[in-house]
């Protein structure tokens, strides 16, 4: 069974059809990229899946359960991890506290009021930080981290609820090229180790073709291509869509 199944998804904003009849599936352990030019409906699609928006039509199943009417929080509770285009971390806490907070929430300890939070899940947090290579920065204040480190911290937070599905919105945005590949390699390794399915959107075609196992191409709200990187690259419709941008040709070389 697919961990994520999207059927005939549609979203209409006051008369404007942003997403039309999109269907696809994601298998455990798979890296799936969702691409398309600006305004193609990537973000809308993404926000429909993570529950930020409610679809006008169509169905979404995660781990076989319909997410209809579920808040982002409840979808997260199903075992879905998320990272954001602009990193969202807890700036007033240290790196390790950020992960501890995520672990507390995952274990539903957020109502505990009579014991210090710092005493919870110290080992688990350390393990997660080690996994993303942040162990040496555990005690630093989140607000003073370099951007690449923030992204890795976010990954650790997203992994805290032992997700089987990871939704990453432009994970490499705003990073230097070398950092992008390092982050995505790390993600791919973890996804494979833990058989996590990853759905990500991305502008940078290098990253997409390097790391995605499968690619979905959206244009004007419609899915125009789907398949392995090589096949998508060769698809004339995709080439037409991306013609002015040049990114695809660069990627080919």
């Amino acid at each position, binding site marked *: 069974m697919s961990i994520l199944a999207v059927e005939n998804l549609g979203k209409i904003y006051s008369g404007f059809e942003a997403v039309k009849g999109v269907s696809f599936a994601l298998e455990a352990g798979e890296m799936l990229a969702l691409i398309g030019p600006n305004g193609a409906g990537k973000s809308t699609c993404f926000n429909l899946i993570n529950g930020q928006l409610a679809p006008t039509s169509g169905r979404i199943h995660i781990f076989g359960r319909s997410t209809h009417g579920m808040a982002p929080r409840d979808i*997260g509770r199903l075992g879905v991890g998320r990272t954001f285009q602009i990193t969202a971390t*807890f700036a*007033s806490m240290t790196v390790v*506290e950020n992960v501890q907070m995520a672990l507390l*929430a995952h274990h539903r300890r957020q109502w505990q009021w009579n014991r210090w939070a*710092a005493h919870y899940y110290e080992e688990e947090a350390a393990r997660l930080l080690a996994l993303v290579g942040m162990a040496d920065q555990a005690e630093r*204040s989140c607000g003073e981290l370099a951007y690449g480190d923030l992204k890795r911290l976010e990954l650790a937070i997203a992994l805290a609820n032992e997700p089987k599905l990871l939704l990453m919105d432009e994970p490499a945005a705003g990073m230097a090229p070398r950092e992008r590949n390092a982050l995505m390699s790390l993600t791919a390794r973890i996804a494979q180790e833990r058989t996590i399915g990853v759905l990500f959107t991305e502008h940078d075609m290098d990253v997409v073709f390097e790391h995605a196992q499968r690619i979905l191409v959206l244009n004007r709200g419609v899915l125009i291509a789907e398949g392995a990187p090589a096949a998508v690259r060769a698809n004339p419709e995709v080439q037409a869509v991306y013609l002015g941008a040049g990114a695809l040709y660069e990627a080919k070389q």
Partner: protein
Amino acid sequence: MAPLFSRSWPLALRVSVQHARVFPLNFYFDQFVTGLASACSLFLVASGLSIIFGVTRIVNFAHGAFYMLGAYIGFTLTEQFSGAFGFWGAILLAAIVVAAIGTLIEIILLRRIYDAPELFQLLATFGVTLIVEDLALLIWGPNELLGPRAPGLKGAIDLFGLPFPTYDLLLIALGPLVLGLLWLLFRRTTWGVLVRAATQDREMVAALGVNQKWLFTSVFALGVFLAALGGALELPRQSANHTMDLQVITEVLVVVVIGGLGNVLGTFLAAIIVSELNAFGILVFPKISIVLVFLVMALVLIVRPWGLLGRAEAAARAAGGAAILRWRPLAARGRLAVVLALAVLALAPLAVGDYYLTVATEVLIFVLFAASLHFLIGAGGLVSFGHAAYFGLGSYGAALALKQFGLGMEAALIAGPLLGLAGAILFGWFCVRLSGVYFAMLTLAFAQIAWSVAYQWSDVTGGDNGLLGIWPSAWAAAPAHFYWLTLALVAAGIAALRMILFSPFGYSLRALRDSELRAEAIGLERRRIQWISFAIAGGFAALAGALYAFLKGSVFPDNLGIPLSIDGLVMVLLGGVDTVSGGIVGAALYRSLSIWIISHTDYSKLALGLLIVVLVVLFPKGVVGAFESWRARRAPRTGGESS
């Protein structure tokens, strides 16, 4: 037991309807036009506040003070110049003079603190208001000053058979005219385009290379000009007097919020709605005025969380990088210091007399009040403008338990906090559906509604004559005993608040403040967590209020009033929002100083205002924040810490 329930409802709620009568149609028309005139004079003042907020994000508390200055300076000038030209020239000149004063204040004071937490500017303008109040008293004396009527517009015209003041007709024309001019200014000039862009996205405009400083200054000047113009234009309708500033500020703030912050058209609509509802409302409910605007605001905000024409606020504050202080529970040395301090405090009755013990008790009570508010603001990022509501409910709960139900002090000290808790649970449920300034204003609305119930329900609350004879039980009556009781309860309260603060629950609350998006993604229930925090803060504020009732021996609606809510904010901000102990230190500092200043000076507002302004400029992170930054600089390891 029975009296509380057998007695009548509060007058505010009681249907004290005028004799139902059907009036001829022209009566209604007249009432409508009268409401319109009130709306336009309200709009003139409110529009300036709206513009200032829209661009600079400053809740300009001094707006009322500028309005008052406009009237006073207008009075002085109209005494100098005569004739139609002289009169209108004087009005305009007054507005220009006040705008210049406002500009000066912006450049000297506000510019220094734009980077401080948002509310710091509110605190600064509050200080300015206090200063202006006493200066006006020094310059113009204590008496009301009645200016001339407008030349040529002294009388009334016949409007469908009823006399209607011609000056009001002018106001009715002026409202839409100003609205139109502002529209042109914002739509058709480069300056206006920049201002609108800045309203949408401040950083973007700065990135485009626009000189943001002068954009802010010019906007502030325009806003102050409108406030002062509104004040000067009141001269033919009312006297220039010392209560004008506070009388107008809450009302215009409410109108601006109802309309949607920063939206001038919304402000205009809100002014009309509020004025017309009042004009017609008093025909049916003659006592409605006292609470009407707050009722309207509460209803509007519940239905439309960003006001009539407002839009969702941009993310409140991008938590400011490395400057953030780390929150840590006290280390061993710190705990030792606290134990020592408590021991010293406990021994105080051996060393000082009754008066200072009573003052110390009062300071302790405010420490708990401020700590509870700080829990909301500092940890939760939830700025309450109406925290006094729960303090006051605590006072009334205790007083009523004693007076109505004949319970002892011990039971009253439980009943009070329970009533405050109940109020916080009820009001909090609505408030946590909003955010930012709208959240703050809804808390204010509920506080004012609670206040007006206490003020009006004379049978139970004693109205503004209050409840008397709320003295402690015999064993706690001696000042030293009551001091010890207060010290114990306050210490326990603060210990509990800190325990919660550093517990998973407290972390969750902070997580929601830091990043709602992330907090939701990891599965935190925003509304429930904030709601419970609201209730916790309310409960502890109510404990403070219950103690306060027994300290003073009496309870008055003041205990729920806006000034007390503002005092709470001042304490938290002076201490430092982003520090763990800011509320505690701020309260101890501010309350002691204000008691001393009121007792030892004739111009206490001037002194207090100057003090606030100086502290704001010197310590933009609050006193504790400044201390901790200083400590962090000395030991530059991992940024600042706060315990």
